[in-house]
């Protein structure tokens, strides 16, 4: 009888009644054919493949990760509560050893959602992986986490949330930002002064195929993960690198995704993008699930699949190899790079311009982080949107040192509520979330 070699959990929440708008790629129909394929394959009958019921996240789970403007309820629809809650449920199942690994096949996605949220970007409001990870850190004392984002778009939201965190290794593989939304994610973007080299961006040239992806996973990502030794590995499993995806220009395949999963061995995978809803998703998702469960996936292929038609060129191969070497070099030099970035400064400031393409909002951030060799550093973000919402967000990291806690508190206390719509304090060590400002 068919049996999973690794006990694998699934939450399937296709949100068949939720869409951004009726003809938007992020719509009701998106996971319909994946569900058809999963049902027809009898996936939920396989011994060792366990289907869980989705759960809800709580307001506090959102506050632990995000600063929502003006508040959590304004940014979360019912389906966001369930989609994020499903990722959280899978995380809990892994920590409780109900399963060895799990996959949250849910909508809506989250990897473009940054720490401060004024609206939806790249079809995302809130970052469901980050909320899950921060819950696991809070509830189970998980410390070191690696996130490998294999969506075709740069995981700029996740990158933003973990930019300063030396305990989180964020690796994003994506189509070169010069050719695709959101236009970011270059190797030189390697994390803040307290965590340089813990953000690794691997932009791949258009029309990279399985050969290129698997080269990077085997020769770059795997060795880095082995060295970093995370407590858990999370895969932001976007499927828009597929050769049939209408929004992107890559040449990845279902077999390729399955092999990638086998090498990556994620503890938790969370579905991100993927808009070739008939030609790719049913097969890619099936491949990922079987690979996670340690089962045979050799007979999976897309209708009309022809590897010769999508083979990458010599030029692409060379570019991929070159980018791999660059990233490995950054990883190896991460400690020196961190030193160099700090260069005796007490604080680092930067200005961020953020465009919310889904909602058409512009945001400007003045960000200030304390340079600290003992923790991720107290963080202060002064954020204004072109809708006239100005907020101040203060983040005290989970493992903050005394000094950073003190500075964070001080920033919050000193802020004049009359200048802002809201002033937020995200006090992670005490799991305390405060706001002040006009009601």
């Amino acid at each position, binding site marked *: 009888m068919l049996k999973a070699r690794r006990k694998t959990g699934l939450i*399937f929440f296709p949100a068949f009644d939720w869409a951004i708008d009726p003809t938007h790629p992020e719509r009701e129909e998106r996971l319909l054919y994946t569900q058809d394929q999963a049902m*027809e394959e009898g996936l939920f009958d396989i011994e060792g493949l366990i289907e869980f019921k989705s759960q809800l996240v709580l307001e506090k789970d959102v506050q632990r990760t995000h600063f929502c403007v003006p508040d959590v309820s304004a940014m979360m629809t019912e389906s966001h509560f369930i989609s994020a809650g499903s990722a959280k449920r899978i995380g809990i199942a892994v920590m409780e050893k109900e399963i060895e690994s799990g996959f949250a096949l849910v909508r809506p996605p989250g990897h473009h959602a940054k720490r401060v949220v004024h609206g939806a970007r790249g079809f995302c409001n809130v970052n469901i992986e980050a909320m899950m990870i921060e819950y696991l850190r809070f509830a189970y004392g998980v410390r070191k986490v690696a996130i490998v984002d294999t969506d075709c778009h740069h995981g700029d939201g996740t990158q933003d949330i973990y930019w300063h965190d030396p305990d989180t290794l964020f690796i994003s593989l994506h189509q070169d930002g010069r050719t695709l939304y959101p236009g970011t994610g270059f190797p030189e973007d390697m994390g803040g002064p307290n965590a340089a080299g813990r953000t690794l961006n691997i932009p791949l040239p258009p029309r990279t195929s399985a050969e290129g992806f698997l080269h990077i996973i085997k020769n770059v990502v795997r060795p880095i993960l082995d060295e970093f030794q995370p407590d858990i590995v999370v895969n932001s499993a976007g499927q828009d690198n597929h050769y049939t995806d209408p929004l992107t220009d890559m040449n990845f395949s279902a077999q390729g995704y399955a092999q990638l999963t086998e090498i990556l061995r994620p503890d938790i995978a969370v579905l991100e993008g993927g808009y070739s809803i*008939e030609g790719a998703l049913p097969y890619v998702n099936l491949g990922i699930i079987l690979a996670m469960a340690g089962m045979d996936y050799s*007979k999976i292929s897309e209708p009309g699949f022809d590897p010769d038609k999508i083979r990458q060129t010599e030029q692409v191969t060379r570019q991929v190899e070159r980018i791999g070497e660059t990233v490995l070099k950054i990883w190896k030099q991460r400690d020196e790079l961190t030193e160099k970035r700090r260069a005796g400064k007490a604080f680092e400031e930067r200005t961020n311009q953020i465009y919310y393409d889904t909602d058409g909002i512009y945001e400007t951030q003045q960000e200030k982080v304390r340079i600290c060799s003992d923790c991720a550093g107290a963080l202060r973000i002064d954020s204004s949107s072109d809708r006239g919402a100005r907020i101040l967000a203060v983040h005290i990291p989970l493992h903050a040192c005394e000094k950073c806690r003190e500075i964070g508190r001080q920033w919050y206390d000193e802020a004049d509520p009359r200048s802002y719509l809201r002033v937020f304090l995200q006090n992670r060590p005490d799991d305390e979330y405060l706001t002040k400002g006009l009601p």
Partner: protein
Amino acid sequence: MIIGLDVGGTHTDVVLLDKDGLLREIKVHTDELDLFHTVLSGIEQISRGIKPKAIERLVLSTTLTTNLIVQGINPDFGMIVLSGPGIDPEFFRTHEHYYVIGGALDHRGREVTPVDLGGLKKIVKKLRRADIRHVGVVGKFSSRNPVHELQVRDALKKYFRKIFLGHWISGSLNYPRRIATTFLNASVYPIHKNFFEAVQKTLEKHGLQVPIHILKADGGTMSFEASINYPGQTILSGPAASVMGAIPFSGDQEEALVLDIGGTTTDMAVILKRVPVLEPVGIEIAGFKTLIRALKTRSVGLGGDSVVKIMNGKITIGPERKGHAMAFGGPVPTTTDALCVLNMMPEGDAAKAAAGMKMLADELDRPVVETARAVFEHFCAEVVRHARSLVDDINSKPVYTVYEYWEGRQIKPDKILLLGGPAACFVDQIEKVSGVKTMAVPKCAMANALGAAFARTTCEVSLFADTERGIITAPEENYFEKISSAFTREDAQKKALELLEQKARRSGASRDDLEMDILENQQFNMVRGFSAAGRNIRIKAQVRPGLVSGYQVISEKLSKEMAMMNGARQICSKPDGKQD
């Protein structure tokens, strides 16, 4: 008049009803090796002296197919499956004569790869050489489009006597289950057909020309003629019969747990507002996961005759059984013996029962009666614990839409109905432990036969419309039409109900019993290249399992009896050894 007959492990219960109530009830001994004579003698005895013309309905619930499957199948038939991309179909191999051929459809029923007719020819030769006469043919996604299965059938027609097609079974998706179910249907087909033909012929000889209805695992009936292609649906009708028998005693607004306490097991089911809860996909039997619609039942090894032991100073009950209770000559102490010692059961040898309880009492170092009381209480607590876990299971079923999530009504039983010989003994204690109003069903020893007699004809229809492709199909019904792009979800619902009514009538339903529900009603806008290309509509409709019209009189009568019995104490009796 209606005859209801339920074949049990030790005896077969038969009832005769008319619109005024229960006229006769008898039990005959079940001869597992000769079910034919068991069934016939049951019918003959109950109808003795009745004018054959007066009998308008005969419903049989037998263990025939269940036994065949549990005892192991003689796979003297072939299986041909069409593969498509996905899990290797070798994993679903049923037996030696199982062949995989090329040919694939996708999730919308579009052809991806044509049928490998050349390969099929070679397989036909092999099957013929092995002297095979029946064949099952199953394709992936055939419930979306049976074209490949039909092509294979056409190619096989002249070589084989009977060909079973996967899309007949169900509109549900599940290829491995479709293979297993087709396999089971093909395997029990000849015996099922011969058996009921023989019953029908013999009855006709006696002047009883009444259509035979057969009880299914979903608690509904189908005519014998309709069952020929799906004999597998008649498996495990026994537990379904009991649940149907309990329905008249649950209110139309109540959520009831039905607990049938037998000798070997306690069987559990849930009734919501007089409608039994069904398995989400299909029943599992002897390791086969199927697409056979069935009541959601759970059987736990916790019966009146289950072995009672002391482990680490604690009482444990079941799951195994070693024959009868000691009070009835068995070898080890049981809960039935505890009932004897507590003077709750008038039958049985009280001295032997006490000897059994003493064995346990010595180990516990407690008095005999106190021990019997502890066994009895533990038994009730275990029954309630398992019942709760069944309810939790139903409540934790995944949902796929935001609406279902937020509307997700949780089942909270407000009544427990007990069935089985000793049911009456347990009423008070189970009510106490569970905190839920509990009662024993009147005539509960006959509830199964009554359930069979009362059960309504049920069936299901699945319909898909794809306005981009311009097609509407209900593959189980062999229905295919072209539709225009203006076809709506309302049109689809109307069509589904129309097909359902036709099917129900063909299966023997009377007009009064067509209580139809739309089970699934989904419509998706298909968007290709940022503009709407069409609608994908999915409708599932059923005739709701329930009781035939006109049963109310009888159930009211029995309810009155129940009220009387609850006034006086109901007497409990020896559990029925379902699997002696």
